[in-house]
């Protein structure tokens, strides 16, 4: 079971001080948070992708590579990569490159994005959202899995004799998760390929999550990748904790009440009941998180959103310290009663082992004139 954090990289005014960080501060803060995540023993750091203010989440590849250079163990991921509006050729190249630079510490989560104008900004039509996700991902798979690709589709210039470089590290592509809140087609897509399925989970009632995860598990089995309970499931989560429950509620309430996503709407109490948000003591966060299994089954990856809504860096780092304190109990709790046939989330090492060992996938071109391999 992997634990980690995911960030949308929002630049939000701290409602308690009225201060808004600069982009520079926020970008640097994200790096600090990622390094801290490794320090407390988390397994995954993931960053979102947005192409508009108030986010600093454009160009996730630079961010992940930079963090990769300053960390040793933590897996770097996206949450999410916009498979709809990003050229799959660039995704193939960029993430294979990060794979090499970080010795395989990278995977990806595909998403369709939630900002309507991103589609026209990148020359796409939002009504094609699902079809773009399907076609672009099919091409991405081929670019990683086949050395030379001839391809023609609806949404991109055809490719003839194209080789995406570098080839995936050890001949094994990064593991891919597909994220969606309410689109059955995406659960179907994840199941078809035997990829992971990630449900954002936060901001939504548990019923949404359960429905999508159930569908994905059922179809994972249908497509012959294993039994339903062996499907690779990830969940989001959101908490604010202090030693004392009431301190957490008092401190977080102004951030909740003014948060960009749900602020000025339901009360903190109603929202924590309706969604997986937990605001309280470390013990409460521990118990609520362990309860996620009750409706999705034993799963593989748990990511928490902790740096958002204007929370200052200092507070976010304190939250990570508290998460570090309950991490052993989280791991022990999730391991309890977990059947032996339920797999862990795939990693580069496990994928290499499954492929029968590492092999260098470098494609040496042949000189047209001399016929010599160069």
């Amino acid at each position, binding site marked *: 079971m992997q634990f980690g954090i995911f960030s949308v990289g929002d630049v939000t005014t701290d409602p308690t001080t009225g201060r808004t960080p600069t982009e520079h501060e926020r970008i640097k803060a994200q790096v600090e948070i990622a390094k801290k995540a490794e320090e407390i023993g988390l397994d995954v750091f993931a960053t979102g992708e947005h192409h508009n203010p108030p986010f600093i989440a454009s160009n996730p590849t630079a961010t992940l590579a930079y963090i990769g250079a300053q960390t040793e163990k933590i897996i770097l991921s996206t949450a999410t990569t916009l498979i709809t509006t990003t050229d799959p050729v660039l995704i193939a190249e960029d993430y294979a490159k990060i794979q090499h630079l970080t010795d395989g510490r990278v995977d990806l989560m595909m998403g369709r994005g939630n900002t309507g104008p991103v589609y026209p900004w990148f020359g796409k039509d939002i009504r094609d959202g699902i*079809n773009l996700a399907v*076609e672009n991902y099919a091409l991405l798979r081929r670019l990683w899995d086949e050395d030379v690709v001839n391809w023609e589709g609806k949404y991109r210039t055809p490719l003839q004799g194209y080789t995406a470089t570098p080839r995936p590290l050890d001949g094994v592509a990064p593991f891919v998760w597909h994220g969606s809140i309410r689109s059955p087609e995406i659960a*179907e897509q994840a199941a078809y390929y035997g990829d992971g399925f990630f449900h954002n989970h936060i901001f*939504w*009632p548990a019923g949404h999550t359960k429905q999508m995860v159930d569908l994905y598990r059922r179809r994972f089995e249908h497509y012959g990748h294993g039994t339903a309970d062996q499907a690779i499931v990830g969940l989001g989560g959101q908490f604010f904790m202090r030693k004392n429950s009431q301190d957490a509620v008092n401190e977080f309430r102004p951030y909740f009440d003014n948060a960009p996503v749900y602020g000025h709407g339901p009360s903190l109490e109603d929202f924590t009941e309706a969604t997986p948000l937990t605001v309280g003591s470390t013990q409460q966060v521990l118990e609520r998180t362990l309860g996620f299994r009750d409706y999705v089954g034993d799963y593989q990856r748990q990511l928490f959103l902790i740096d958002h809504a204007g929370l200052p860096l200092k507070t976010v780092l304190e939250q990570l310290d508290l998460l570090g304190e309950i991490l052993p109990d989280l791991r022990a709790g999730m391991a309890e009663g977990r059947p032996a046939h339920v797999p862990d989330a795939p990693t580069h090492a496990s994928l290499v082992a499954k492929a029968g060992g590492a092999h260098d996938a470098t494609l040496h071109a042949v000189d047209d004139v001399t016929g010599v391999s160069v």
Partner: protein
Amino acid sequence: MRRLVVISAGLSVPSSTRLLADRLSAAAVEAIHGPVEVDVIELRPLAHLLADNLLTGFATGELAEAIETVRRADALIVVTPVFAASYSGLFKTFFDVIEPDLLTGVPVLIAATAGTARHSLVLEHALRPLFSYLHATVVPTAVFAASEDFGEAGLDSRIERAAGELAILLSGAPRQRARTLEEEFADPTPFEDLLRGA
């Protein structure tokens, strides 16, 4: 068993909007052959939940139940007070938060109340286009009741005519529903088809 769902957006108690809704519903029950189950949804108690739904994107509690009730409806009677020359914001918010295909093919009787008869065309310029957009089948006779109509002859016959038309629409061929999200979850489109569609 036919399921008739009555939606009333009246705000005061007692409410002339609810009064009109009840008379329409009684007339419809009489006009429809066979047993009818009537559910009345008052929007006033759902006002906070509706505002929350606008902000969070999902319905909770009694609002979620009300939406499920509408999902199961064979026919609707919808009644709004006239506010600022149109349906009330509360009335519109309810239809803003339901899934857009929920009313496809559903017979809907539209009705409104106001302090003056000068607002009567609200039914034609605001409510009828709204329910046409939602692909509902709107009953030809819409019922408008100004305060003064409650003391005059004529409202009865309009109520009866509209209820009769609703009953006729209900007796026709079963409604053609769009494939719902629930159906897609139960029986997903195979991925090969999605690949071919792309």
